[in-house]
């Protein structure tokens, strides 16, 4: 009996919307190496690790092990947010949370008298990592397209059908998931990462573009960008800064991830795949390149394989004055190292000339005995000046506040 059921079920596998979540736009290509494994030395067993498929219960979150500078406090702001990735704040205080492979959902978290309520407002989406809130609407970017949910905060219980904004993204899974922002110029900024660990330059990938909010008027902002999953605009002058994930398999300690200054004029070439961290010529693609002379240089190196993701300039008044204008950066933590690097929040101070004067650890304790207790993805400032930090490993959102005590 069991046998026949099992066999019948094997034949009758339903390719529902949930399964469609995982399908790439392009038909499968023969004999393809997994994108992240290109360049991997033989015998090396390191591999990317997805988020754990179960959110850690609130009582078991490792908040007691997390460390912040004196006078700061870290607490659990929301739990049971499976695969929590991008964070955006609505005008009415709703915190929108994106997710990736594991959940494929967009959440809305609202504060009900000090308790957080987590609602799923969209699901069965294709790697919906990129979100932005602007003038009442929630923008959602997948590797394929960008859609818009109008007047979303008034419709959290019955979200409207999304409106298509732009449907010409390449749709690759590798580095295809997005981080999107509306800049001070009112344009939507959209990156497309390299569809590989390391591969030849083409004009569809490895760049940041901006476009009008209806998807028209696309123009290039930066090229030679391997994979950015975090950027922000300096509130002082509107300059664009972005984080970049460096290539894998070169070595345990090189190359570094980086923080990069684009500025306003844009169209700087940051060198991928020819050069890494500004100065290292790629062993395959870098022949004949004078990296430091030919390409824009990073403002800051943020560590080998650190998984440098979300970033925000701090504009609040809750934290001590020295943090105003500084950049908080989430480092997801490495998979491409035998010893974990990153997995924390760091803070970096711009020097006013497109560079960074120093970087300090800010929120640490997510790594214990070379194992993750959490992996920070995005960082977002709340109206009161506190910071929220998403953790896709535990499916949680932490809050850091300052009282001086």
């Amino acid at each position: 009996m069991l046998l026949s059921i099992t066999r019948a079920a094997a034949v009758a596998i339903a390719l529902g919307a949930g399964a469609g979540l995982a399908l790439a736009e392009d038909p499968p290509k023969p004999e393809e190496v997994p994108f992240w494994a290109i360049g991997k030395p033989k015998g090396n067993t390191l591999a990317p690790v997805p988020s754990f498929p179960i959110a850690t219960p609130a009582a078991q979150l490792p908040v007691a092990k997390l460390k912040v500078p004196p006078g700061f406090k870290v607490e659990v702001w929301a739990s049971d947010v499976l695969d929590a990735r991008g964070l955006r704040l609505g005008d009415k205080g709703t915190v929108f949370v994106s997710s990736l492979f594991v959940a494929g959902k967009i959440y809305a978290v609202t504060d009900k008298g000090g308790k957080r309520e987590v609602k799923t407002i969209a699901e069965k989406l294709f790697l919906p990592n990129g979100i932005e809130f602007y003038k009442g609407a929630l923008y959602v970017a997948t590797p394929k397209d960008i859609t818009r949910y109008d007047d979303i905060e008034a419709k959290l219980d019955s979200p409207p059908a999304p409106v298509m904004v732009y449907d010409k993204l390449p749709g690759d899974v590798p580095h295809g998931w997005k981080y999107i922002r509306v800049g001070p110029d009112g344009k939507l900024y959209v990156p497309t990462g390299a569809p590989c660990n390391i591969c030849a330059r083409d004009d569809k990938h490895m760049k940041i573009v901006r476009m009008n909010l209806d998807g028209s008027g696309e123009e290039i902002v930066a090229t030679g960008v391997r994979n950015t999953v975090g950027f922000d605009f300096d509130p002082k002058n509107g300059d664009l800064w972005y984080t970049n994930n460096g290539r894998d398999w070169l070595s345990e300690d090189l190359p570094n991830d980086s923080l990069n200054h684009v500025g306003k004029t844009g169209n700087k070439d940051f060198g991928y795949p020819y050069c890494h961290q500004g100065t290292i010529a790629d062993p395959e693609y870098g022949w004949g390149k004078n990296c430091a002379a030919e390409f824009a240089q990073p403002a800051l190196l943020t560590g080998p394989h650190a998984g440098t993701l979300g970033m925000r300039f701090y504009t609040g008044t809750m934290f001590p004055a020295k943090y105003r204008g500084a950049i908080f950066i989430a480092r997801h933590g490495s998979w491409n190292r035998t010893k974990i690097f990153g997995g924390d929040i760091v803070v970096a101070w711009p020097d006013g000339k497109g560079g960074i004067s120093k970087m300090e650890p800010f929120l640490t304790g997510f790594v214990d005995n070379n194992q993750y207790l959490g992996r920070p993805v995005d960082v977002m400032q709340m109206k009161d000046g506190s910071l929220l930090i998403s953790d896709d490993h535990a499916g949680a959102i932490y809050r850091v506040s300052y009282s001086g005590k």
Partner: protein
Amino acid sequence: MTVPRTAAVAVALLAIATGAVAQADADRFAPCAACHGAAGVSAIADTPSLAGQPSFYAITQLFLFRAGRRTNAVMTAMATPMSDADLRVYSDLIGRLPAAPPIASTPADPARMKRGAALAVQHRCTSCHGDDLAGGKQVPRLAGQREDYLARSLAEFRAGTRVGYTSAMNETLAGLGPAELDDLAHYMAHAPGLGTAGQTAASAPR
């Protein structure tokens, strides 16, 4: 004299404690054991052995069954009512089952083994599953799995009717024909890698 006696008592206590834990585990595992075997070694056609599978892989599959993203009538029925805590309990149990070869495995055919080994390298199976195909973390152990289950799974991935979080397996197998998939399954089922490498890295994150 005192030292050995203390040690003997400690050993005895440990044995009792281990026995009790093992019995509790066996009771919990009973619903799984009905199809997958008492020690997670399946004697039922088309039903995978669970022995030696990493707990991270096990919880991921239970999660996908529960969410309707992987479909099998029996497993969907088993996983649908499970809580998050249940998923952890069962995947932890599976992660503790020592690897073992499948029951009543047919003898290895040298020609098919040779072809399968070459395909495993050519199609980079070892990139994720390890040179010994023992898996680890979210990646399943292939070495010693039932050949019929492996053949069926490979055919499903090849056809695109089974997908994981991404289409990585579908893309990896895209260029392979039915005979090649069968040779791969034959090789994996008889692969010698029955060490515990997959299990050392398998414990579920908390």
